[in-house]
């Protein structure tokens, strides 16, 4: 499980948030809310080790996340605003490459199946520059279906998705939580689940 204590974020001379502490246990979903500029993205970037906190600690199963040989980075998936989908590669190649970058080999068939389930059937061999923003985001999200990591950190992933895909993402999230996964989702959209413990972290402006 993921535990943070007294996290403080300073950007430039400004303290964006301080004393943020929470613990995520298997089956928990945290919805991260707050006005623009309240540090949602900064908090998620801290949780995935891209930004070091000015103060406070982040621990995975009791050990700091940046412990050498720790397993944290192989059980965590972060999908940010900039989702890393390359224009020149096809949807299928993008998915296989992004899993490959994390050291996980996936077959052409399972990649195609994951894209199909994200509603991209028939478009898997189209270069990503011909896909709309929402479709590109779905290509990025398809990795969640395949890599089966236990902690998902999602930053505004619902943005530019249509209603049907938003529902399918929520369904995917619900399955993930039911299987004992954990998620922290920064979003302005309401999310409703029937199962899973559902909590909220509100960052003040």
């Amino acid at each position, binding site marked *: 499980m993921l535990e943070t204590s007294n996290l403080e974020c300073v950007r430039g001379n400004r303290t964006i948030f301080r004393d943020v502490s929470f613990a995520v246990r298997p089956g928990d979903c945290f919805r991260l809310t707050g006005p623009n500029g309240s540090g949602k993205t900064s908090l998620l970037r801290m949780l*995935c*080790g*891209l*930004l*070091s906190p000015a103060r406070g600690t982040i621990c995975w199963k009791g050990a700091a996340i940046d412990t050498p040989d720790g*397993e944290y*980075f*192989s*059980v*965590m998936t*972060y999908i*940010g*605003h*900039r*989702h*890393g*989908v*390359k*224009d*020149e*590669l096809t949807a299928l*190649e993008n998915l*296989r*490459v*992004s899993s*490959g*970058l*994390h*050291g*996980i*080999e996936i077959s052409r068939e399972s990649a195609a199946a994951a894209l199909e389930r994200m509603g991209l059937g028939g478009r898997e061999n189209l270069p990503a520059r011909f896909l709309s923003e929402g479709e590109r985001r779905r290509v990025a999200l398809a990795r969640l279906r395949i*890599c*089966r*990591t*236990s902690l998902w950190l999602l930053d505004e992933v619902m943005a530019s998705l249509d209603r049907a895909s938003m529902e399918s993402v929520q369904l995917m999230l619900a399955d993930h939580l039911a299987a004992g996964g954990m998620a922290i989702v920064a979003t302005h959209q309401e999310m409703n689940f029937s199962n899973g413990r559902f909590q909220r972290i509100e960052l003040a402006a």
Partner: protein
Amino acid sequence: MNRPSYIVMFRWVVWREIVLAWRRKSDVLSTLAFFVIVVSLFPLGMDPDSRVLRTIAPGVVWVSALLASMLALGRLFASDYADGTLEQMLIAPQPLGLIVAGKLLAQWLVTGLPLVLISPLLGLQFGLSTEGTRLMAVSLFAGVPALTLIGAIGAALTLGIRGGGVLLALIVLPLCIPVLVFGAGGNMALVGAVLALTVVFAPWAAASALRVAVE
């Protein structure tokens, strides 16, 4: 859950870079064309005395190779930085140095190797002997990867900075002087030594610089 594997990661990084280069052929070809044109300007602009040309040939080809590899450096991390792929590389479970090494290997295959392969043809313009051409090609073969490796550190340091291109040249060109001196002088042992040193250290140095740039 599958265990992440270093080999799988390395293979995908190299594959991806090569495919991307293939689909943006103009980038690769423009570097090569730049190299050919700059080298060709010297025989045209100078006294066509073959002795003079023969003496300056290795130096001219080396300086042009250095400038051409500088052109390719600006793109090394920029597009991955812009679209978020670089963040994903930073949080991958494998060491970032290994990912950078994979990128650089691919970069050398798509831009460095063609420079080396075309250099004997350019040697003809300077009336180089077979022996001289061979020496030049071999020194470029060992030296160009060293230039790319040193350049990668500069590219990582200047990532995301406005007007980074000029700064990149100011940082990287002085660092490349030893390689240039040894390479153009045909001192293969020292070029090899610099290459060995940079292969070991440059990917890790570039990786540390990337972490700072992304934060």
